[in-house]
């Protein structure tokens, strides 16, 4: 097993952790962090797999660089939206649709 392949497999594990966090956690900031983890895992898999056979490959590296910048912008936008949501509702979690549970509200 080569080092790049190890990176790719680490990416797989991180992807699993991120997915678990995205589905299992309820706080919106944590969900956003989990989404970020999934993104980073994807970048790791992309770059690792491409390097496995032929050494550094500039094409996936450029794609990942593009992806990193977009994910930064998406994260910043997510934080802005979460804070706006918090200001409007006082909640840090998404409600259960129509039920709109009371205990979600901050004291």
């Amino acid at each position, binding site marked *: 097993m080569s080092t790049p392949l190890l990176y790719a497999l680490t990416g797989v*594990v991180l992807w699993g952790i991120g997915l678990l966090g995205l589905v299992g956690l309820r706080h919106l*900031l944590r969900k956003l962090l989990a989404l970020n983890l999934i993104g980073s895992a994807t970048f790791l898999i992309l770059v690792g797999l491409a390097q496995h056979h032929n050494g550094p490959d*500039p094409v996936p590296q450029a794609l990942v660089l593009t992806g990193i910048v977009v994910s*930064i912008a998406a994260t910043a936008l997510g934080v802005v939206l979460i804070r706006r949501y*918090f200001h409007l509702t*006082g909640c840090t979690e998404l409600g259960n649709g129509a039920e709109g549970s009371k205990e979600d509200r901050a004291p």
Partner: protein
Amino acid sequence: MRSPTAYVSVLLLVIMLTALLGRAVWQLAAFDSGSELPRLLQNNLAASGVEHPVTAVLLNFRSYDTLLEIAVLVIAAMVGISMARTRSLEDPELRTADALLRALLRWFVPLMLLLAAYLLWAGADRPGGAFQAGAMLAATGVLMRLTGMPLDFLRPGLLLRIGLVLGFALFLLVGLASAIAGEAFLAYPPGLSKALILSIETLLTLSIGMILLALFVSAPVNNASEPEEGEQ
């Protein structure tokens, strides 16, 4: 999570999906695609106008991606600014009166600006380029904002609008000009690649720095009467 059953089933599902992905990666790794792309890139690098392969891919061979990327950034900044609660995007509550930070900043700001310029220039033949330099600019702006230095250009107005779209506008203009001239969209005219890439990168750096800074600045401010986000 509501119940233990739901928790266990979600956990199992995630483990299964992860195992599936791991298997796919393993199979992909065993299979040598024999991709021609790296060789093709090396052979055509001289025509791209820059010496670094990643920059060549970003701003010449796949500049379409970069154009769309900066478009996404501009849209994100617009949404971020429209979500802001303060009219001036500058709230005195956010300032810190930290003497140490102020003193450090006198040294840091010129150094960071210099580093941003270096990163921009280095993109031609080594790792670096518009995005790294833009991130550096934005970091400088964040530091300046934290110490309460006046950042007049961040007020919603003509200057902010021009700054946000400058990079995207020039990029689009170059692409459209080459399309109108009869070439493919975003195909640089031969001989002009280097100059065009350099000017696009410079304006992209400015725009990216401003977009990231605007996104940082536009996060709505906490009211003192409202609970902190950590409390629940």
